[in-house]
């Protein structure tokens, strides 16, 4: 029963949504409106579930004094403190919440993303080698696109941004479209398998 009931819900609702998309009947619209109101009611519970999950995972680590448990304590403290500052003083400009966002969240987030530049430079130097014909084509294309993305490319020659644009609009586009078609067909096939009850891995293992 633990597997059959979720399976029945998924299949029934799946077909109802397919019907709603293709049949603009009054009953179909009413069903959709009913679902929207339920979605709004369900969403806050997802937040509660997330907080519970985070608290349980990190609470267990702290109680067991697992390696690096101090980070878990810091995570829970940040969760409570940030949430409380938002509830007490609001989230508008000039509040502690916004101060935390600007002085903690923004620099930390930017730092993480900016590491990419260092890794790309290091990887380019250590690993980007013209070992074969294919690698050479990739290397030349990368150099042209990199130059084409900055004003220097145009300053050197009009040909550089034009070639960069051609690389992005023709070979890149062809490859991306091929991947998109493959993904689209895969998604359609998987959706059909879920609707027909053939694909059941989303239910998890065991009974």
């Amino acid at each position, binding site marked *: 029963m633990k597997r059959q009931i979720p399976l029945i819900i998924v299949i029934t609702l799946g077909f109802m949504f397919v019907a709603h998309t293709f049949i603009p009947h009054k009953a179909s619209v009413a069903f959709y409106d009913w679902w*929207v109101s339920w979605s709004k009611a369900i969403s806050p519970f997802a937040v509660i579930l997330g907080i519970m999950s985070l608290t349980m995972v990190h609470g267990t680590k702290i109680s067991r004094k697992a390696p690096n448990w101090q980070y878990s304590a810091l995570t829970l403290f940040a969760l409570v403190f940030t949430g409380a500052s938002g509830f007490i003083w609001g989230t508008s400009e000039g509040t502690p919440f916004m101060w935390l*966002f600007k002085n903690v969240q923004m620099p930390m987030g930017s730092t*993480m993303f900016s590491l990419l530049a260092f890794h790309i430079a290091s990887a380019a130097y250590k690993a980007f080698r013209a070992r074969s014909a294919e690698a050479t084509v990739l290397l030349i294309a*990368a150099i042209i696109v990199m130059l084409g*993305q900055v004003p220097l490319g145009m300053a050197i020659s009009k040909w550089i941004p034009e070639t960069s644009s051609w690389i992005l609009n023709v070979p890149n586009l062809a490859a991306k479209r091929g991947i998109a078609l493959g993904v689209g067909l895969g998604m359609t096939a998987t959706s059909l398998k879920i609707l027909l009850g053939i694909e059941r891995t989303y239910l998890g293992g065991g009974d």
Partner: protein
Amino acid sequence: MSNIVPFFEKMQALDRRYIYLVVALAIIIPLLIPFNSKTYVTEPTANVYKMIDSYAGRSDRAILLSFSHDASTMAELTPMEVAILRHCFQRKVKVFTLCFMPAASPLMDYALNIAKEDYDVQDGIDYCNFGYKPYGLFLPILLGMGDDIAEIVETDAQGRKISNLPIMTDITNYNEMNLVVDFAASSAVYSWIVYARARYGVNVAAGITAVMAADNYPYLQTGQLVGMLSGLKGAAEYEKLVDVFATHKNPDGTIGRSYSKEILQESWIKLSDVDKRVYKTARIGMNAQTVAHVMIIVFIILGNIGFFLSKKKKEQEMM
């Protein structure tokens, strides 16, 4: 030749911390000492500008800015958000903001606060922040706005009922709020293309990080995306468009002029001509990006020279 080979062999084994140091300097120095470089506007960016500009002064047209990113990609995306908001405020285009990520909510306030500083605009009249909506409501809201925005979104970020706000006069659904610009470091824009564009015919544009830009070219070619701002470069291009056209001071004292390719090609705006640093953030950032790209290209060339010299030496030793 015999002196060069050991040098490149040493360079091949160079500690990566030296590379990090060079990259750090290549980025920090141009940011501290900005230099003028010409910004060339590409067609996808110009198309976004032209579409927004066509809504100028119309009460029955509005645009929606969807913030689908967190603070990590602010460096690339915030300058384009600020530039588009400035354009809207300057040209009296109604603008709505919305996000489905909790981390994006302060980013909307941040961009709005920067952009509105020099303009006499009022929340609820000239712009409206719909605020954060849970991701579970993404699809219902995205589709629901095709029928009635006020009904599905209900309240704005301040809890006010949207249907009561003056900005909603003449605005009902995607027929009026006819352009959605999604700012993302992911493929979030596809949902707008698949559902809002396909079902309701709304125009969709993307403001996206440079690493994700290549993924969107198929949608640009088919016209499913009316335009795209690609990374910091796209933001710098939009900043230039706002300076050249939207905020241009005419001899008769009026502000703003229509888009013209000829004027754009002739225009040269120096960084010193723009008063506020926040209005030229992307163009200053492009200086750092230029130097960083050149550094990476130099690294690639040096690495390959070393590779070929070592290979040649090994071949000679084998013989």
